[in-house]
């Protein structure tokens, strides 16, 4: 099972975990990334390249599934406007092997960071805007 979603709407990590648990593979590893405190960030804007995001995230999920023998992969990446605490992305993997589930989850996050065509702009409380990283 592979499910890749690119959306502005929020999602429920618990519900996504449940979908993977229902595969009865044994191990489910997940990662949720959100807008964190600190650095005086008031708001975050994320733009994306929709056509490329779709193909690239699907590729990343397929690579992970093959490489780590996963029974399930879920990737969710949001775009739009965010504030403190808002979820930005979610990656999760189900596998018979506990180590593989975790390695897959790390692979998914590393791949998203390196290849996902999403650009984040932070708006500080001082009114300044700066591109992330």
């Amino acid at each position, binding site marked *: 099972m592979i499910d890749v979603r690119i959306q502005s709407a929020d999602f429920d990590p618990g519900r996504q975990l449940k979908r993977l648990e229902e595969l009865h593979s044994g191990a489910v590893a997940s990662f949720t990334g959100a807008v964190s405190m600190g650095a005086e960030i008031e708001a975050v804007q994320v*733009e994306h*390249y929709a*056509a*490329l995001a779709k193909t690239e995230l699907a590729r990343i999920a397929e690579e992970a599934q093959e490489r780590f023998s996963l029974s399930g992969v879920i990737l969710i990446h949001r775009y739009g406007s965010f504030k403190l605490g808002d979820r*930005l992305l979610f990656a999760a993997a189900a596998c018979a092997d506990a180590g593989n589930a975790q390695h897959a989850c790390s692979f998914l*996050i590393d791949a998203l960071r*390196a290849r*996902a065509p999403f*650009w984040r702009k932070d708006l500080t409380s001082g009114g300044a805007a700066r591109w992330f990283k």
Partner: protein
Amino acid sequence: MALGFLDILYFGSFREAFGRDCERVDPPSHVLTVADLIEWLAVQGEPYASVFGDRSRVRAAVEGVSAAPGDSVFGAREVALFPPGGVL
């Protein structure tokens, strides 16, 4: 042989630097790869020179598929150029 018109899409800080999200260009016939295209754009004055000055900070996609510098743009209608992304 000319490539004909090519739409270039910009994202992230590139979009901001150019003040637009796309432009139509007509590159010369020696522009055959992603690297050639960037090379050619970089000599079109500012803000091109600054934006494309550091080639390691330029990513590309041809017809919506991720592309390496050596990949062909010959015959392509749409090439996207953008900085590295990431929200974490």
